[in-house]
């Protein structure tokens, strides 16, 4: 008997195809063999043509026609490959197969414009019935009734929680009542609707819907019901009574107390009155008080419980919500058994309506990433307003899915009506078409369609009855049954894009896949154990050649051999040939240094001259690095403020490293412009304009600065690079008080002399006057300090000197690295100090007076200006007139115009005392500034919005290249974020809120608070990167940021205060491109510099804002398209479209973007004690430093003076460094009268001790040799979130 292996369920394989003729020949020949060739035939009686899988060793080497997998080649078409992150594989011809299955099942309309009135009612009835069923299923009422019955019993059992249980009981009863009421209402509604339906059917004489309601009555015995009813009412009444009584008891107690008190008082008063009559004079104060006491009200007796009334109430309630006794229980039941009247029996209108319904066709479009990819055939509507498609649409995709949209259309004779847009969610990778379930999506449309014949229309009012009462409007609504899932191919593998790169941001991986060389990596290690286990569990057919490899690998070896091998030798016998061990390699410090340097770790990034021998490496090379590494591992909350600062720093470091890592890739991706420098070929037009320049008249008195060549970092040799300063002039410098007196005198004198001029021409002032006149008002000069190098100008003359001097300062760079990355991260500051040079006569000896001149020069600090190096570097040059930061208290000096005003009161109205310096700063030779990373950042914004913004920006930038327009910025995650998302009212710090100031006062306070958050340029935090805007909570956590962060925070505070505030992006001096806050103050506009806390009016000619680019708030961004860009000349009415171009206008309405700011800012009060500790520490440190700097002479500290200054500093903080009242000044002067004091207070945010020391050093107080004593006081005002305002008052005293 032949066996048929295939029928037995075994795999037999495919026999090689041999011509039947040849096969027959062969069989014939074998049959002629002696034993009839038995061994050549298989069990099925056919020639053996396949290898026997049961044999241990193959009798013939296994030959397959298919190629070895590693030798396989694929034919690739020659195509251009441009990387596009929108594609899953990075390019359109990606190898991956990804498929989405969109299943469109059916649409059911819950309202349609062709609904007849009956349909409307039927739908409503169905809805109500569904509701009823749902409630029934929950059976809440029964449950509650049971509960109400049970509860009193429980109450009896446990007396302990009596009160609580009572409460609970009452609560349950109210809930029960409510539920019962709803049940009854629902039932009523159902029956009512059914009645209406019936009446309509009767009225129109035909049926449109198969709906039928049957109400099943369950008779109940009246007696039993009544008993039940009564019992329940009694129960409730009893409960109420109990409650009442408890209340009553309490009330009664209170009543008794009150009564008692009342009576006592009455008695006492009566007695007093008697007394009064007897002896009015001797009435004691206490007695009088008693008499004057207000009379207590006579207490009212609480009411007793009225059983009757309560019972009536309860009864009435029960009547309203409960089934009456004897009334049958009703159970509605809905069925679809009513017959629909055939169309030919209907009146004409209805016939037409039905006709229209069957003519109406509906179809669905499927849009993938807003492109139509397929659509269903348009199918007619059935009479019950249902369309069944039941089709699955396969979408083979190459792009990342961004949106999947279904559009439901109703086909009409002419054109289609879009009923609704429905967005289907992009399925998770785990959702495949095998596991997905149909989803119901509701849709509705506001399309208005008038009623035709019998239909009710959609979006138009209609009535049920002829009388026209009770109109209602219904919109077309419905439900779409559909699903979207990832497809599964024939092998059962889901066609899902790789999850590792499912986020479109991660296009580096995709890049890697494109480059085969980069993709080379160790293949995944196969876990043999797991494989074997799986093999055993899945019971694969061992005969199947597809599994042959597996069987061979697992089956030929016994299991214990397999288990003993839990490792895999990659390179056999390697060890014998090793020259060194891995450990030796790992501990080699030179190798480590080289690797770290190669990885661009900041500490070693530009380490030059790595030594050739390990022994030559400095011993402590890695100490710093390792310490940092360790520190990063344990960041813990610390108590100390300075430690907190350090923690903040570390946090910032971490953020920075994360950001850097993210951007490094983008940085290393070069574009053509980065590699190839292509000079623009000048066109003919330029040549002509050049030629015209020759004809221009020369203007030697109006020199123009020439453009300089930029030098690359490699071309720069050390010490060549300098900072050039051209100091042109200074104006309104305060003058000495001693000199001021005579100035005043001179003014008066001149007025007098002018009147006398006609009389005595040529006559001069007398001698005394002349001497006074020639005493200099002030002898200012400017000293510039940078990296502890100092240069100075010569001494100018008078309060408005002209210097016109060029100064040079060498630039020292760490590691001699002039690359832009390193330069950007320098946070040195150029200090520009204004001093007054005093000549002090030293000669005490009168005898020598005639022959010897012994004088000493002394300098007095008048003000300073700080410009961060990064600002100079990024702007290449800074040119303009700057306001000098002058101390609020400058003893011994006075402003000239203040003097004049006292003289000529009428002329000047302004009170601001500002000193200005005009200068020009640049770096020589000009260094190349870093190009911002222009890579397009990934974003979560709407593509369309970004495109619109880009267009807006492009358009405006072309017109006004100097102005900055910034619709989107980059957040800390390296994503483009639309800028309006940064604005949102945020709560102001608690301690400022607690002060309860006026709005104006609070605004100033808040500005001061913001300005006390340290300023760090973005380029320092994130070198080599463009501007990164952090959100306010990140900013407050990092406690460092540049203008934008300050401005955004301040603006959000202002919004919270209810001001109309905008963020202004533009250019200002000295910051260059920057952000200010613009607020509307009545008719005036104020510019707030958030990093200094100052504000300027827009018609202030010294307003630092030079160019206004755009302004923005939470709703919109407005670009400046006026012909002027200086604030003074501008129109700030943003509604004026000829002056401001908004991004969101009528043509592109605002999509109402949500904010990325947190809901609320969290403030932590700063520990005052720590602040005081720190204050002391700073003071000690500064004193030590000053003594160090004055190591040649003895430094004495004046305690008295320090005490006065300590008292003064909090007052200054209170007034936020503005002019303090004359009163204080006078007091101060009086107290200092014993000495000649030269000193001033400084205010700055706290960053670290180094910064403070540097600031004190730059003032040069310590250089005053003649000073006998010094005084130094430090005051720290701690705001929330450890924002510290540091005041340092340093002064030198001479007797």
């Amino acid at each position, binding site marked *: 008997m032949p066996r048929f292996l295939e029928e037995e369920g075994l795999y037999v394989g495919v026999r090689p195809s041999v011509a039947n003729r040849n096969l027959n020949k062969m069989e014939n020949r074998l049959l002629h063999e002696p034993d009839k060739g038995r061994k050549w035939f298989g069990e099925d009686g056919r020639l053996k043509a396949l290898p026997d899988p049961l044999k241990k060793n193959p009798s013939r080497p296994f030959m397959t026609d298919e190629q070895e997998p*590693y030798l396989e*080649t694929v034919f690739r078409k*020659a195509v251009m490959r441009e990387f596009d992150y929108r594609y899953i594989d990075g390019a359109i011809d990606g190898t991956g197969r990804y498929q989405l299955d969109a299943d469109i099942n059916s649409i059911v309309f819950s309202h349609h414009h062709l609904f007849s009135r009956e349909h409307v009612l039927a739908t409503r009835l169905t809805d109500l019935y569904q509701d009823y069923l749902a409630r029934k299923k929950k059976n809440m009422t029964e449950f509650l009734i049971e509960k109400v019955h049970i509860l009193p019993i429980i109450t009896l059992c446990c007396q302990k929680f009596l009160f609580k249980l009572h409460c609970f009981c009452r609560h349950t009863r109210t809930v029960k009542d409510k539920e019962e009421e709803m049940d009854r209402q629902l039932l009523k509604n159902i029956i009512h609707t059914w009645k209406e339906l019936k009446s309509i059917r009767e009225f129109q004489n035909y049926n449109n819907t198969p709906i039928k309601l049957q109400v099943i009555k369950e008779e109940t015995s009246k007696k039993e019901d009544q008993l039940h009813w009564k019992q329940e009412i009694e129960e409730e009444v009893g409960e109420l009574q109990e409650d009442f009584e408890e209340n009553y008891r309490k009330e009664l107690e209170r009543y008794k107390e009150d009564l008692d008190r009342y009576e006592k008082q009455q008695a006492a008063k009566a007695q007093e009155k008697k007394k009064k009559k007897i002896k009015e004079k001797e009435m004691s104060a206490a007695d009088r008080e008693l008499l004057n006491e207000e009379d207590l009200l006579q207490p009212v007796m609480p009411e007793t419980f009225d059983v009757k009334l309560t019972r009536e109430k309860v009864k009435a309630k029960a009547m309203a919500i409960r089934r009456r006794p004897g009334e049958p229980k009703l159970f509605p039941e809905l069925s679809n058994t009513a017959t629909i009247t055939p169309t030919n029996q209907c009146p004409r209108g209805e016939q037409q309506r039905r006709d229209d319904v069957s003519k109406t066709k509906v179809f669905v479009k499927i849009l993938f990433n807003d492109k139509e990819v397929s659509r269903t055939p348009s199918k007619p509507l059935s009479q019950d307003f249902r369309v069944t498609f039941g089709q699955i649409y396969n979408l083979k995709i190459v792009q990342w899915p961004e949106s999947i949209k279904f559009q439901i259309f109703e086909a009409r004779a002419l054109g289609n009506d879009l009923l609704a847009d429905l967005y289907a969610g992009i399925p998770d990778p785990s959702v495949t078409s095998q596991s997905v379930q149909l989803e119901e999506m509701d849709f509705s449309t506001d399309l208005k369609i008038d009623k035709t014949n019998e239909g009710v229309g959609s979006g138009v009012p209609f009535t049920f009855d002829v009388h026209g009462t009770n109109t209602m409007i219904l919109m077309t609504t419905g439900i779409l049954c559909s699903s979207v899932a990832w497809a599964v191919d024939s092998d059962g593998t889901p066609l899902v894009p790789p999850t590792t790169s499912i986020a479109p941001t991660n296009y580096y991986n995709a890049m890697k896949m494109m*480059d085969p060389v980069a993709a080379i990596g160790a293949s995944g290690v196969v876990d043999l154990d797991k494989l074997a286990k799986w093999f055993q569990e899945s019971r694969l057919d061992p005969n199947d050649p597809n599994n042959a490899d597996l069987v061979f690998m697992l089956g030929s070896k016994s299991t214990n051999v397999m288990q003993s091998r839990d490792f895999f030798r990659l*390179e056999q016998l*390697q060890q014998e040939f090793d020259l060194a061990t891995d450990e030796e390699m790992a501990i080699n410090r030179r190798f480590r240094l080289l690797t770290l340097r190669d990885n661009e770790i900041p500490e070693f990034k530009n380490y030059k001259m790595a030594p050739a021998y390990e022994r030559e490496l400095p011993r402590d090379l890695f100490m710093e690095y390792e310490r940092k590494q360790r520190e990063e591992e344990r960041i813990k909350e610390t108590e100390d403020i300075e430690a907190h600062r350090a923690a903040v720093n570390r946090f910032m470091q971490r953020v920075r490293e994360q950001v850097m890592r993210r951007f490094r890739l983008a940085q290393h991706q070069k574009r053509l412009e980065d590699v190839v420098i292509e000079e623009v070929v000048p066109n003919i037009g330029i040549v002509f304009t050049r030629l015209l320049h020759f004809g221009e008249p020369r203007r030697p008195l109006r020199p123009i600065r020439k453009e300089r060549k930029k030098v690359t970092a490699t071309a720069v040799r050390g010490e060549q690079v300098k900072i050039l300063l051209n100091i042109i002039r200074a104006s309104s410098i305060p003058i000495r008080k001693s000199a001021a007196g005579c100035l005043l005198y001179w003014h008066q004198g001149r007025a007098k002399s002018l009147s006398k001029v006609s009389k005595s021409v040529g006559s001069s002032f007398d001698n005394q006057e002349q001497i006074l006149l020639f005493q200099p008002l002030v002898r200012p000069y400017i000293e510039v300090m940078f990296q502890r190098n100092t240069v100075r100008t010569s001494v100018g003359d008078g309060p408005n000197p002209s210097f016109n001097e060029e100064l040079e300062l060498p630039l020292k760079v760490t590691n001699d690295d002039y690359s832009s990355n390193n330069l950007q991260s320098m946070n040195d500051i150029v200090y520009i100090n204004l001093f007054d040079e005093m000549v002090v006569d030293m000669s005490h000896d009168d005898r020598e007076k005639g022959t010897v001149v012994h004088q000493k020069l002394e300098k007095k600090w008048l003000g300073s200006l700080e410009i961060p190096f990064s600002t100079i570097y990024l702007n290449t040059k800074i040119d303009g007139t700057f306001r000098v930061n002058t101390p609020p208290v400058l003893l011994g000096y006075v402003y000239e115009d203040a003097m004049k005003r006292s003289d000529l009161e009428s002329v000047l109205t302004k009170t601001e005392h500002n000193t200005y310096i005009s200068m020009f700063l640049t770096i020589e030779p000009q260094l190349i500034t870093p190009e911002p990373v222009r890579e397009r950042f990934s974003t979560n914004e709407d593509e369309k919005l970004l495109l619109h913004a880009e267009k807006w920006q492009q358009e405006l930038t072309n017109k006004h290249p100097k102005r900055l327009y910034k619709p989107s910025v980059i957040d800390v995650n390296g994503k483009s974020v639309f800028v309006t998302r940064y604005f949102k009212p945020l709560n102001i710090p608690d301690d400022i809120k607690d002060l309860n100031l006026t709005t104006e006062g609070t605004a100033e306070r808040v500005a001061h608070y913001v300005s006390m958050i340290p300023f760090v340029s973005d380029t320092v935090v994130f070198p080599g990167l463009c501007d990164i805007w952090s959100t306010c909570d990140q900013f407050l956590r990092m406690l460092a940021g540049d203008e934008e962060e300050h401005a955004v925070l301040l603006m959000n505070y202002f919004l919270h205060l209810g001001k109309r505030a905008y963020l202004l992006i533009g250019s200002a001096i000295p910051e260059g491109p920057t952000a200010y806050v613009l607020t509307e103050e009545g008719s005036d506009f104020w510019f707030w510099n958030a990093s200094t806390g100052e504000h300027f009016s827009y018609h202030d000619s010294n307003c630092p804002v030079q160019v206004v680019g755009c302004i923005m708030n939470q709703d919109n961004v407005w670009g400046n398209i006026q012909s002027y860009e200086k604030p003074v000349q501008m129109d700030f009415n943003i509604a004026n479209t000829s002056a401001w171009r908004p991004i969101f206008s009528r043509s592109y309405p605002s999509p109402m973007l949500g904010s990325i700011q947190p809901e609320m800012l969290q403030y932590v009060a700063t520990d005052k004690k720590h602040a005081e500790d720190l204050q002391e520490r700073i003071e000690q440190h500064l004193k030590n430093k000053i003594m160090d700097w004055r190591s040649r002479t003895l430094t004495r500290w004046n305690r008295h003076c320090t005490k006065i200054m300590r008292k003064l500093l909090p007052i200054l903080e209170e007034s936020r460094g503005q002019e303090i009242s004359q009163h204080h000044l006078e007091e101060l002067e009086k107290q200092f009268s014993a000495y000649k004091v030269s000193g001033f207070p400084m205010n700055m945010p706290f960053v670290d001790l180094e910064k403070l020391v540097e600031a004190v050093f730059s003032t040069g107080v310590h250089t005053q040799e003649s000073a006998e004593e010094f005084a130094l006081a430090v005051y720290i005002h701690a705001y929330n979130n450890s924002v510290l305002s540091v005041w340092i008052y340093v002064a030198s005293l001479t007797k």
Partner: protein
Amino acid sequence: MGEVHVIGQIVGASGFPDHSLFCKWGIHTGGAWKVLSGLREGQTQVDNPQNHEAAFWSHPIDIHFATKGLQGWPKIHFQVWHQDQYGRNELYGYGFCHLPTSPGIHEMECSTWRPTGTFFQQVSQFFLGGGPQLKNPDLIYSGADRYKLHTIAMGKVHLRLGLILRNFDRFGIEC
């Protein structure tokens, strides 16, 4: 612990049917080798010679290895790609060679090959460009059985490499 410093350049390629070429290169080493600094892989620009019989890239290579053994001596492997007049890229050849084992300047030539594919593929390639590529590019430098792979010889890649070896003599390896 030997150190190998490779300094040199990929000069160019010659002998290809057309010479607007670029090349992707990489250096593959055994497990005992560690890159201290420098790039292990890269891609040259597309050279578009007008009259020459060769493409020149002059692509710098500067890489510093440390090793604890001789096994897995670095191999440099190439994929030469052709860019046609439409800007489309197609594969022109695979090739690899070991880095020299002696110090000094070495002028090297590396021959390349490419899979031929079926007759139909060849016809398609002749008219439309493109061509068969290895599914698994590891094969370029791994010594598996390749007797079933049909290839055709392409041009040569020229290299000029300078090698500096260090510390090998300490372990009895003369160079």
